[in-house]
């Protein structure tokens, strides 16, 4: 490869755009399904850990262990079970990573509800379920969403590692570029992954503004 | 002496926290800045150790303009106590107290010995020295805060609402402790509070401030209660100024009869000559009574002692609690009249 090789060959992008689009879609699915699944599982588990404090230490400890497992290692361990180059092989470990970030976030978020607020809700006659939905969860939203941002961005970035086992969305472009000693796919892959992450992050920030108007009012005050 | 000369603090957005403040804080006495929130009392205090710098005017510490002193150096010579104590959570109590001595380069042994001495002085068990702040109650933490401020024996002490975060019982004991310490140490103390009762109890001089950073009145508590400068000060002082003012009139001026009773009643004493009650002539059983210390207490305490007892008279005792005489209702009336404050004399 000579020095004349440009970092980006625009014509290559034009020619391969349909394929890139397909990889992008695959990437989005494999990155977001784990986050959504993670959130759906983390909410009840987090609530349970906040309610019964004895569960908290074991849950967080387990999640710390899960978090320290290298993604590539877990992909590989799963191959015999879920198959090589399958979406599921990538989605399962990433779901666990999301859980590792989201469960502590849910617990901390609920911990951020001031005691006085919780007690006055009880005093006003809120039942446990109603209090949870109308008082505790809304107050916990900012902390949970902060966790969701980290989980989403990490998930989008981690999917590309799946390329090493044959299913990594945009990560395929890294393998392709490496094998052909060709910059363009690699650069396109990096740019798209980062752009996707920034976009998703921005959407969550936007959602947070819509979901917690009281925080916004305070900021402008 | 600390002198404020036309001191103004104006923030970037135009808000004026302190407006052209001129006053003197006398050496060796407690001066209290009191007022509602937003009156600039804390800002005024924090300008003395340059936590905030004045926009206009100057502050003199013993004739030296504080702007000529580098802030950390200035602050090491001024004790500083704040509301939540602000103890360093990662350091043991003894090292918290020794903070400034360490900064001043004292050797460790000397600094620690000084810290232990101060812990005792503020009424703390020295067993607490090895603990961390989170292991102490709020009142204990506040005492440590005072000890820490006194560690390098600074002539000036700044106290920013130091007792407002503790419960009333603890607060009262901390206030008494401060007065006791001050009687020994004679520091120049500037004390900020929003509680007028605390101001009157502690202050040799009280500066009442109003919103916008204006000084409304500066005077001794008794003067303040007797002659509030305007409606704002009067309102801030509250309703029962007259009664409270009696706290500043010594009881020693009362006419005491050495009779052990008044017509129809006698004072019952125990074997140590301490009063145990009033006895109605010809009746068994004792009735409630009240006493005051002739030398130390105020006219207010004496009046209170009289109001507690069915005969309407107060029992005077000496420093050891022994019977010293009786003050009749007439004698009290006379003293109250002299104090210019007869109850009910609208």
């Amino acid at each position, binding site marked *: 490869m000579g020095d004349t090789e440009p970092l980006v060959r625009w014509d290559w992008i034009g020619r391969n755009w349909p394929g890139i689009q397909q990889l992008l879609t695959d990437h989005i699915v494999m990155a977001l399904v784990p986050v959504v699944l993670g959130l759906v599982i983390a909410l009840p588990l987090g609530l349970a850990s906040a309610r019964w404090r004895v569960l908290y230490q074991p849950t967080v400890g387990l999640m710390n262990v899960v978090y320290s497992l290298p993604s590539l290692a877990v992909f*590989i361990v799963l191959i015999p079970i879920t198959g090589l180059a399958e979406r599921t092989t990538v989605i399962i470990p990433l779901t666990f990573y999301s859980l590792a970030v989201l469960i502590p976030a849910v617990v901390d978020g609920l911990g951020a509800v001031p005691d006085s607020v919780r007690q006055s809700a009880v005093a006003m006659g809120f039942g446990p379920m109603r209090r949870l939905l109308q008082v505790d969860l809304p107050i916990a939203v900012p902390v949970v969403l902060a966790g969701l941002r980290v989980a989403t961005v990490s998930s989008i970035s981690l999917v590309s590692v799946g390329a090493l086992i044959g299913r990594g969305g945009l990560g395929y472009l890294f393998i392709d570029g490496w094998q052909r000693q060709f910059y363009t796919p690699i650069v396109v892959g990096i740019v798209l992954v980062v752009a996707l992450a920034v976009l998703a992050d921005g959407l969550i920030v936007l959602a947070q503004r819509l979901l917690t108007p009281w925080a916004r009012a305070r900021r402008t005050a | 002496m600390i002198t404020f000369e036309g001191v103004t603090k104006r923030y970037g957005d135009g808000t004026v926290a302190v407006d052209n403040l001129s006053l003197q804080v006398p050496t060796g006495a407690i001066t209290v800045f009191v007022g509602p929130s937003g009156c600039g009392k804390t800002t005024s205090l924090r300008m003395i150790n340059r936590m905030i710098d004045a926009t206009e005017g100057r502050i003199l510490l013993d004739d030296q303009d504080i702007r000529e002193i580098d802030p950390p150096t200035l602050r090491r010579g001024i004790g500083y106590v704040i509301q939540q104590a602000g*103890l360093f*959570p990662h350091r043991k109590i003894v090292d918290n107290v020794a903070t400034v001595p360490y900064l001043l380069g004292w050797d460790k042994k000397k600094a620690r010995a000084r810290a232990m001495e101060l812990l005792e002085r503020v009424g703390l068990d020295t067993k607490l020295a*090895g603990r961390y702040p989170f292991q102490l109650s709020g009142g204990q933490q506040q005492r440590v805060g005072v000890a820490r401020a006194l560690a390098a024996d600074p002539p000036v002490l700044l106290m920013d609402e130091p007792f407002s975060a503790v419960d009333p019982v603890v607060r009262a004991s901390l206030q008494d402790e401060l007065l006791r310490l001050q009687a020994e140490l004679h520091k120049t103390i500037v004390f900020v509070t929003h509680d007028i009762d605390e101001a009157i109890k502690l202050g040799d001089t009280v500066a009442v401030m109003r919103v916008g950073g204006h000084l409304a009145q500066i005077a001794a508590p008794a003067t303040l209660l007797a002659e509030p400068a305007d409606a704002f000060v009067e309102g801030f002082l509250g309703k029962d100024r007259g009664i409270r003012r009696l706290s500043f009139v010594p009881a020693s001026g009362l006419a005491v009869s050495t009779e052990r009773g008044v017509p129809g009643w006698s004072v019952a004493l125990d074997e140590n000559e301490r009063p145990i009650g009033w006895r109605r002539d010809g009746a068994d059983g004792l009735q409630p009574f009240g006493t005051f210390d002739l030398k130390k207490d105020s006219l207010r305490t004496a009046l209170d002692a009289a109001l507690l007892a069915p005969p309407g008279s107060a029992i005077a005792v000496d420093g050891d609690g022994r019977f010293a005489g009786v003050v009749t209702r007439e004698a009290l009336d006379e003293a109250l009249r002299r104090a210019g404050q007869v109850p009910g004399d609208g």
Partner: protein
Amino acid sequence: MNWLVDFFGNRANWSGSGGIPIRLLEHVEFSLAALLLAMVIAIPLGLLIGHTRRGAVLVVVTANAARALPTLGLVVLIVLLAGVGTTWPVLLPLVALAIPPILVNTYEGIRGVDEDLRDAAYGMGLRGRQVLLRVLVPVALPLILLGLRIAAIQVVATATVAAYVGLGGLGRYIIDGLATKDFPSTIGGAVLVAALALVVQLAFSLLQRVLVSPGVSRRARVR
């Protein structure tokens, strides 16, 4: 299980340049170098913006975006640019990976110290640097260590990717195993990396106990 026995029971896997001890050492060395570089950049920067509160928004937003950088992509791009066979440039993606958690946690730790404490420290006459080093850092230490722990674990886990471009470390067993369909090697490598990550986790728990004042972690017993 049989795979693990095959891998760890094979004596050839325990000696020579491709043996487990050497690979482990390479992995640790590489991870440690990346972590130290990231610390040298992120800790002073985090302390600075946490203490002065200037430039915080920009730095935190950039750090969060940097979390999105796909390490695999950066590794292959850098090796292509620098030429195959280079070693140290491959550290850069790992450093980029480690900086955000260290930076954000250091910044948040310092910024989050109780305002009263800062006030008291300045009021006692501590200078800016003394306030930072003697009060803010000890109090923020649990969060700073948390950031370091997260970074260390991510680096150890992700350093495996470097094997894809021909570098050593435990990733070799995984990548080579995948290429030659040698499953015991792949699984064995994965288990080794996971074990190393757990050791890092434990090491940080110990470090936390040693470095953080009992007054901050509230572990002290009342005597």
